[in-house]
């Protein structure tokens, strides 16, 4: 794992203006800072609410920030306070797996997975084969020509996951991607995700409210406070890879880690 910083967030802040009341508007995020080295799987834990999604939206440059900066590699900071200058996905270098699957209802599974390649003009035999491999890896083989409404929630999640992986962005943001699934499916997808990650060692920023999930998946975990959110804890996950998702809780280091993190989560 190289130590080059791929993504850096410095003093990021977000305030939502309130239209009705004259009271002070809500600072959702204030002076939040962290950095992510290349190839790290970073998990972020925070209380349920819109703070985490807002954070990822700002990094992905879907929303503006009220203050602070986001830097990719050693490039100058992205202009994130001006809505007109936003560059969603930072020119396809930041991928984003959102909470809702956001599959296009009028495209089949295969067409949905190929969608980023289509709009990026990178559709060719090689990328098509890559898409097929990913479809097979997550167990969606045979469902290529199904429409989203014909798939189960778990299957749609998988499709949206590999839709981001298929174009191989250096940084991938994930917003509680497995939150809406049942425990069994969630475990399977977590294993799939780690298996895929092992193949490419992408840089991942994974947001969740589930402490166990954060420990099971991440190299490092950050804990966020309630609004106004900032980083109040950082924990290195000492459990070696490859990880056993289903048996993670019986690992000797798990318990202590869990307690330490639990104490910080508000």
């Amino acid at each position, binding site marked *: 794992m190289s130590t080059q910083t791929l993504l850096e967030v410095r003093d990021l802040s977000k*305030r939502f*203006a309130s239209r009705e009341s004259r009271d*002070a508007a809500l600072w959702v995020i204030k002076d939040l800072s962290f950095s992510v080295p290349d190839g790290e799987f970073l998990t972020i834990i925070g209380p349920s609410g819109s703070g985490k999604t807002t954070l990822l939206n700002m990094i992905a440059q879907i929303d503006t920030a009220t203050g602070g900066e986001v830097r990719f590699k050693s490039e100058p900071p992205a202009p994130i306070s001006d809505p007109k200058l936003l560059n969603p996905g930072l020119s396809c270098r930041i991928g984003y797996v959102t909470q809702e699957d956001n599959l296009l209802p009028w495209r089949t599974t295969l067409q949905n997975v190929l969608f980023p390649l289509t709009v990026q003009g990178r559709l060719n035999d090689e990328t098509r084969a890559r898409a097929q491999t990913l479809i097979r890896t997550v167990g969606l083989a045979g469902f290529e020509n199904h429409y989203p409404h014909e798939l189960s929630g778990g299957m749609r999640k998988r499709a949206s996951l590999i839709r981001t992986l298929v174009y191989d962005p250096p940084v991938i943001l994930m917003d509680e991607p497995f939150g809406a699934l049942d425990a069994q499916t969630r475990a399977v997808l977590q294993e799939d995700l780690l298996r895929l990650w092992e193949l490419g060692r992408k840089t991942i920023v994974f947001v969740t409210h589930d402490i166990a999930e954060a420990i099971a998946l991440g190299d490092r975990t950050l804990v966020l406070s309630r609004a106004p959110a900032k980083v109040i804890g950082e924990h290195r996950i000492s459990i070696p890879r490859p990880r056993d998702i289903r048996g993670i809780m019986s690992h000797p280091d798990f318990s202590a880690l869990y307690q330490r993190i639990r104490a910080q989560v508000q």
Partner: protein
Amino acid sequence: MTTQDTALDLAESAHLRWRQYAVLGGRIGLAILFFIVWKIGAERAGPIYVADPVLVFQRIVTDTMSGELVRHVYVTLRLSIIGFAIGCFFGVVLPFVLRRMPRVTAAIEPYIMASVGVPKYALVPLFILWFGIDDAPKLWLIGLLVFYPVFIAVFAGIRNVDRRLVNMARVVGASESRISREVIWNSLLSFFFASLKIALPRAVSAAIIGEFLVGNEGLGYMIEYARQNFDTVGVFAGIVVATVIVLIINAALVRIDRHINAWRPVERDMQL
């Protein structure tokens, strides 16, 4: 922090106000443009094809003052309202009657739906043949055009009544007619008013177009008579008046609809 807050708030509300002025300005501009184009069209295309807007408005004024226009408008509106009442009556009563005869309903439903596909205006010559050249064929036309949307709306409204409300009413001891009156009627009220918003303007349009085809009175007759005499000013004047009347009715209905829906939630709470 507070100065930053108020600065952002001020910027937002100023932006909103600017936008409202821009939209209003744009609308006024567009209206003015419309009249300019009309005026130019009148000068370019000649008096037979496009009537001069000034002349049109003058004609409207003189016809109003002479009472001529008022008489024709009154005739048309009277026709519309009578036809509307007839169509509304059957449109509301029939679904309730059919509710108690499910077998008959199932038997005739496809034919009712099929009859929707017949353009009612196409029946006017037949009505004239059957009912003569007075108001009768026009009333049939208006009645039918009003009947269909109201009937379909009330019918669907009855069908879509929340069965849980009906069951609740039964459990607390309401009689069938009480259920009809209160639960079912209130549930379909929104469907019914939505259909009225369609049906009333339709009634007026139908009266006017019926008057194109038969009769010697009313706004439609005025327009068609003017056309046959190549009195383009008269044609334009009639169309302007007809359009304005229908638009006023539409606007009034929207206002009433809003007013009615305002108290409905409160009324619902009192029901439960």
